[in-house]
Structures are given as structure tokens and as C-alpha cells.
């Protein structure tokens, strides 16, 4: 069974996040709260996500994107906002607790930015949920391409099955020559902070969990620019870590990946 190299953080994290009534996270509840209705797409530009200005600290950035016709077709909530803002809020708290990182700990957990927003370049760590529904225009493709090539790091999460085809297609528009390579446990990102021992995780969608990466110049020995949690949704575990909805081990596993992603991004 996989165990963490720094398992000692667990009691603290559990106490801070999982135990109902503990001041920490409960006190953070404020707009935009979990489950709060988000604006319609045509109101995005005017909506205040409560983004924090850059001040040198680490800020979790969630990328928002248009879905094209599929939003109306599926009549569902916004995929890019899945687990927002509790996922980033909880992860930032964990980062602050178990590492020496000084992250932004605001109520919204981080910033929400579009791919072509110049402000994105001030925050070299970004997260995108449900890339199976992702669409982008040329400006967004160029913005994200420059972000990644200059040194930005992007996590794709919460997609499965045939979502892959849309994800891959959109990614090729951003990085035309990029190759999505499967990652195994030996990659440094899985050991950047916690010593993760296996990539086997609970099959949330009934499909085997896989990790893919895009490397700078497609060199597997080089810098990892993108990691994709395929058939997985670790943001979901972060979001519900204070509810007891998921087993503690699964939650802790997801935090291990999240912490490692951030530390790797900040050192490689």
C-alpha cells in the first residue's frame, strides 16, 4: 500500500480540514461559495471573481473557457468551475500547512483567468477542470502557448473516456507539435515533496487512472509543462476534503499529488 514519505502532516491536515467545527476552513466560507450559482457565459466579463492582485505570493489560478454550443446542449453547470472555489481554497491551506510556501489564502482560493488574459503570466501555476468541454479561440491558444513556453505550468483534471479527444484536439491548437506522453512513478514530479509510491488510484469513473505529460521540446528529460490527470478528478477530493464524503486516504492521496505538482512547478 502506498504511504507518504511525510505522513506526519496528515493529523494536522485532517484536523484542519476534515473535522467539522474546526475554525479554519469553515470560517473561510464566503462568496463565491461552493455551489453558488455562477454567472451566464455572456456575463463573465462583468463578473467579479474576487481575483487578488499579484503581490509575489503563490496564487492558484483556475482557467476559465467557453464551451461553445455544448453548454446549452448539455444544460449543465460550468465544467471549468467544477470544484470551485473549495478545491483551490483547501489545497492552498494544505500547502500553507505542510510546506514552507506562503500561498494566497483568500476566500475564493485563487484567481479565475482566461487563457488570453495578460494577468495570467504573473501566476505560473494554472489548473483547468473538465478539458473535455474546452474550446478556445486563436487569442487564447496564443496566450496559453506563450504562457507554457515561457515557463508556466498547467494541470488538466477531471476528464475521462472520450473527453480525451476534445482535450487532445484543443491542446494541439495550443502546442501543435506537442506529444502527450504517459508518466510513470519514476518521474520527479511524483517525488518533488511527497514520495508517492504508486500511481494507482481509485477508479472514480470506472476507468484506469492515468497521468500524461507534455515536456518542453518533447524531451522526457526536460521540463514538464503540462500534467493531465486522465480518468481522474483530484480536484473533487480537494473540494470535499472537509465533508467526509471521500475516505481520508483518497483525500490525502489527492493532496499529495496537488502539493507535488505545485512544488515541482516552482522548482523545475
Amino acid at each position, binding site marked *: 500500500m502506498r504511504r507518504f514519505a*511525510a505522513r506526519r502532516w496528515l493529523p494536522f491536515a485532517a484536523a484542519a480540514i476534515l473535522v467539522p467545527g474546526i475554525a479554519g476552513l469553515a470560517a473561510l466560507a464566503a462568496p463565491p461559495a461552493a455551489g453558488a450559482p455562477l454567472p451566464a457565459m455572456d456575463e463573465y466579463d462583468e463578473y467579479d471573481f474576487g481575483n487578488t492582485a*499579484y*503581490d*509575489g505570493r*503563490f496564487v492558484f489560478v483556475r482557467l476559465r473557457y467557453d464551451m461553445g454550443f455544448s453548454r446549452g446542449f448539455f444544460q449543465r453547470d460550468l465544467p471549468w468551475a467544477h470544484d470551485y472555489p473549495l478545491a483551490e481554497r483547501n489545497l492552498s491551506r494544505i500547502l500553507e500547512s*505542510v*510546506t*514552507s*510556501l*506562503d500561498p494566497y489564502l483568500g476566500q475564493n482560493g485563487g484567481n479565475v483567468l482566461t487563457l488570453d488574459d*495578460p*494577468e*495570467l*503570466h*504573473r501566476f*505560473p501555476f494554472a489548473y483547468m477542470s473538465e478539458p473535455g468541454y474546452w474550446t478556445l479561440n486563436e487569442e487564447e491558444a496564443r496566450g496559453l*502557448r*506563450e*504562457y507554457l*513556453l*515561457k*515557463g*508556466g505550468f498547467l494541470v488538466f483534471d477531471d476528464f475521462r473516456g472520450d473527453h480525451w479527444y476534445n482535450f487532445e484536439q484543443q491542446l494541439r491548437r495550443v502546442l501543435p507539435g506537442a506529444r502527450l506522453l504517459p508518466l510513470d512513478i519514476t518521474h520527479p514530479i511524483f517525488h*518533488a*515533496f511527497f514520495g508517492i509510491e504508486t500511481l494507482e488510484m481509485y477508479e472514480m469513473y470506472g476507468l484506469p487512472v492515468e497521468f500524461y505529460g507534455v515536456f518542453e521540446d518533447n524531451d522526457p528529460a526536460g*521540463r514538464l509543462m503540462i500534467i493531465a490527470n486522465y480518468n481522474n478528478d483530484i480536484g473533487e477530493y480537494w473540494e470535499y476534503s472537509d465533508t467526509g464524503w471521500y475516505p481520508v486516504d483518497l483525500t490525502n492521496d489527492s493532496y499529495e499529488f496537488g502539493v507535488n505538482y*505545485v*512544488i515541482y*512547478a*516552482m*522548482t*523545475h
Partner: protein
Amino acid sequence: MFESLFEFLFKYRPLIFDQGAFALRASWFGLLAAGAAAAGAYLTFRTYLQVRGNSRPLDRAVLCGIRIAALAVVAFCLLRPVLVLSSVVPQENFLGVLIDDSRSMQIADTDETPRLDFVREQLGTPESALRSALADRFALRFFRFSSETDRVAAVDELEYAGSRTHVGQALERAHDELSGVPLSGLVVVSDGADNADGGLGEALLPLQASGVPVFTVGLGEEEYERDIQMNRVDMPRRVLKGASLAVDLVVTHRGYRGESVTVQVEDEGRIVATQEVVLPADGEPETVRMRFTAAEEGPRLYSFSVAPQPGEMVTRNNVRQGLMVVEDRRRKILYFEGEPRWEVKFLLRGVDDDENLQVTLLQRTAENKFFRVNVDGPDELPGGFPTQRADLFDYSGLVLGSIEANHFTPDQLRMIADFVNRRGGGLLMLGSHRSFAEGGYAGTPVADVLPVVLPAVPADSEEGFFAEVKVSATRAGESHAATQIADTEEASAARWDTLPPVTVVNPITEAKPGATVLLTAPDDLVILAFQRYGAGKSLALPIQDSWMWQMHADVPVEDETHETFWRRLLRWVVDGVPEQVAVELSSDRAEPEEVVTVTATVVDPRFEELNNSAVVAVVTRPDGSVIERQMEWTAERDGEYRTTFTAGGEGFYEVHVEASTGGELLGEDAAYLQVAAGDSEFYDSTMRGSLLRRMADDTGGRFYTSDTAAALAEDIQYVGGGVTVVEERDLWDMPFLLLLLAGLILGEWGYRRFRGLA
């Protein structure tokens, strides 16, 4: 002109009056006649006192005075005035004639005639005018001098090929050789272009003590009409391969004001930099900064030159050469970071491709948890920041990121200070809320080392300082190697002005005295400053996100400014950092057969000096043969060892030094030497009248030029020492006295005519 007129009026040159004593040598008859003249003067006075006529008292006074003066001149002549002189006895005394045999004597600056022509014409054969005049009075001994001094039998033995001029050494040698004979003096025939390292004053002391005057004959012009000279080149002796260099050249000239000349740098024949320079006013030095990259490994001979211009007097002084060792080695830098932050990632990326820099990251990712990158093995930094001096001193550079002072023990803080002060390493502190004053460094040994003054942090300040600023280069920063982010100085300054803003949380506005500020921001914020401290240097870069120069949306993907900045900055941080064994030569250029001194400094891993090491120098000659020398501790300085060797033929010499203690190798180093006949004779090659005058004045001799040297023989006769006799020279027949007497008589006649007197 003055001297000729003086000699015409007074019969002798001023020197004779200087040397002589005045005396009267009247005979009985002369005394009688002088008495008669005095009586005549008295009668004149009485007569004018009594005579009235139609003259006024003033007329009588003037005429009386003129008449008495005329009688006084006559009386003076009758008393037979003489000059009593001490004159050397002909052929009883020796005279040393020292002739400059260096290459600068070939310069044809006076009427397009080589300086050596004077020697050939005036001293070349026994019949030559000056030589003949000297030989009539003295026994002559000829010496030639350049880097060495030799006795010569004939002047035509001179070759004028010496590449250095050591006047002091020549005087000492000649004085020693002639110390057992009556010596009237030494004559130095030279342009005075002395380029010896030693002072001339010491050589003159024994001459002054023994009363031997030095007579100097200066050849050549004291100032050229048109000439350009590469005066100085300031270049490092060792750099890392790929280093971007900014080398300062100082060019002087006369006669080319406002003209544009081409300055260029060659790396062993390959042009690596050129620049057009407009020359300033005559004599005003122009500093030219040349930029180029040290691309090739090994000892490299660089040439820095100004293209020869029409009408230049000397073109061989337009170029200077310098030997630089380009090292293809990795310099280790320890980057200690107290938290995960973006500066780490982008700094490491920036220098990742630099094969000469190994930035080892030690990052605190959690309390007592460290992340290591680029370590040499699992045993490097296993427990965090080094606690032993030897472990820290293994690095050449140290970067302190967002790490608070109280993370370190007091001994570690002292160790960091010693890293700069004693080990000679480079320290760079980065801005963050855990560094500088905000990190609690005020009052620590590290604060003493830093080049900036740490301001007091308000105790009640929770939010702290935060400013987003645009950075600009200071005048020093525009040209400094560490802040060159573009190919030219202008492009670099312009690029600084267009870089996106960065943020500051350490409000530092004051650099220490002696520190240099390279980058600033509005409100007098110091962005980059450095100072030399002890054996090393320290830098302060109080910004927290230089990575904005890479990531900002305004910066194009292909822009390399951030990478260039960090590579050049970190290379400069470790530039010149000494190793445990460091070797230096007395010069990186020597003449064939010149003695070269090798000095090595040996320290242990804690950089404590070692006086009991076995230190061996192996000199590899151009032909591959080797000389091995055991180096001895000098006893002058701890850890310093020295030996010498004599350079042979021309070419590159490698001096490799190894030091060991108890059979264990401490370290090794190499230095290089270029042996060649130099062109130093052609620099500052105008006749140095000031030096030659000083030599003469300090010893009681005289200075001459080629135009006045004809008087040399007679002057030495009366000024020189040795075996002398007393000689008297009459003064009564000086033309001046005759003219004075005639003038007085004519004056009386003219006055009478003017006044209408009888």
C-alpha cells in the same frame, strides 16, 4: 640663444661663472693705475662740485656720475678680475659614457632622423666631434644599456634592439665598474624612455654620495606632433569560457582631435570586436569599452589596436596585447532558498544551459525538509545548510534567497561572512520578506558584508513594504559586465528601460560607502549593488521576482533577457574567486632570458594558510621540455610560496603548480607566460626630458639636447670630479666691459650735445 649672447658679452658661458670664484689679481702697476683712476674720479667730483657755467645741478650730477662710472670701469679692469676654477686634469680622469641601446633609439622624430644618428655622428668614431672633444680631456669608457648593461669597446657595437630601458641599472653598473678610478662623471645618451619597474631614485643615491655628476643628453622630441597610443588595457587574467567581457581601453593622442578612428579586438588573429571612436582634445585620454565573448578555451592572446592614421610618428604603440586564460570549468554556486517560490525555478532555468555554472539548489520546502537540485552526490548538503567551513567554502558563490537570519546559527552567519571575507567567494542576497532587514539580518555578520545599509523595520508594521517598480541602469550599470543584457552599452541601457516592472518588499535606498549601485528604481530604491569585501565581493538584489522579465505578457517568448541577466550576473559573482592553490607570475609577458617569479598561495579546505606544504612548479616550455622547481615558503606571508625560472626562447610557457600535504593533493593551478621581444620601447617613447633633467639636477650634472651637446666636454671639465687643478680665467677683457666703457663715454658726449653744454 641666451647662452650665446651671454657668452658673447661675458666671454664665458654661465656654467663657468657658476663654477668659478671671483678674485682680483692686480699687479703693482695695476694697483697704482687703479689708484690713479680713483684719484681722477675724486678730482672729477670736486671739479663738478665747483663748476657753475650754464649747467643745472642735475646736469652736473649726471655728467659727474657718468665720468666716475667710466673711471670705475677702467679701475676694475686694472685690478685684473679673474674667475678661479677647478678644472680636471686632462687625461687623468675617466668619463663613463652610457649609450641607450634600446629600440626606441630607432624612432625618427627629429627632422625625420633616427635618434641613433646622433650617437653615430657625435660618438661613432674617434674623429667624431663630441667624442674627440671628450677624449681630449678624459679617458673614455663606453657602456651600452637597455634591459642589461654591458661595457663596449666601440660604439658601433650597439644594435639598438633592446626591448626595455633600465637607466637606473645602467648607472649602478657603470658606477660600480669605474669606482676604482678617478671619475669625472657619467654621460647618459638616451631618450630617457625608462620602463623599468624599479625606481631611479635608489640608483642616484650612491652617485650623490660619491659626488659623481651625471650629464644627460636627451635625444628626440619631448612631444610628438601627431601620434596615437593605446595607453592601457584593463582586462581580467582569468575568465570562464563564454564569459561576456567588457574591457576598458585608454587611448591617448596628439594631433587627431575630432577624428574618427577604428578600435578593434583580435583573439589570436580573429577580430572579435570593433568600434568607431571620435578622439577628444590633444592629450585627453579616451576610455573605450570593448565588448566581446571569451569563446575559445585556454590561454588566449588578445590584441587591442587602433588603426594607424596618416602622419603618425609611431604606429607600433597603437596596439597592446594581453594574455587571458579562458577556463572551461564549472564554478559551483550554492543557492539557498527558504521557501518554494518562482524566482528559484526561473533562475535555475536561466543558467541551466551554462556549462560553466553549476547552481546547486538547497530549498527548504517545509520545516526541516530540504529539496536539493544539481548536487554532486547524496552526500552533498544532506542536512541542510553547511555547518562546516570546508563544506561551504567548496562553493565559489553563495546566493541567499528568502531565508531568514535566525535559520542560521551564529557560527553559520560568521561562516557566511568569512565565505566572502576570507575565502574570497561571491555572495548574492535576493529580495524577499525573509531577507535583508525584513529577514532579521541587521546587526549580523552578514549585514557587515552586504553592500547596502539595512533600514530599520517598523516594529508595528504588519503589511510591510510593497512596490512595483521599473528598473533602470545607473551609469555604472550601463557598462558593467554583470548588467549587460544586450550586445552594446546603448542597447543594454535601452533594454533595461523597457523591461516590465518587478516588485520590491525590501525598501533599501542606501548603498554603503565604497559600494557601486548598478540598478535603481524610482524613489531611490537600490535594485542591484555590489562591493568588494575582504578577499571577495557581495551583491544585493532586493527584488523578489526577476522572473517577470521572463514571464510577463509583454516579454516575447523568444526573448533571452532574463537568461542573459542571470548568466552574466552569476558568472560575475564567481569571477576571480580563488581556489585552494592559486599561482601568479611576476608578469604574463617576459623577454627572452628574463627571470620570471612564480608565486603560489596555498590554503587548506577551510582557507587557512598553509606554510608546510610541498609545492612544486612545473614549467613547460614551448618546445615541450620542462623545468621543475620546488617552491619555498617565503616567510613574508602565510601560505605564500615562491620560486623563479629563466625564460628561454619565444613562445607560450605553462607554469603548473601542485600543492600537497602529507601526500594528499590539496590543489593545483596553472598560469601562462608569453615570452617575446616586447614593444614597450615604443610606448611613451617621446624624449623624457623631465627624467633626464632630474638625473642631472640630483647629481650636480647638466642636461643637454642634441643641439647643446657641443658644450658637454668643456662643462665636464669644470663641473666634473676626479683629479683637478686650479685654473684662472681673466675677466678684464670681457666685451661687456669694453662696451660699457664705450657706452659711458658716448653717453657723456650725447648728454652734453643734448643739453647744449661745452
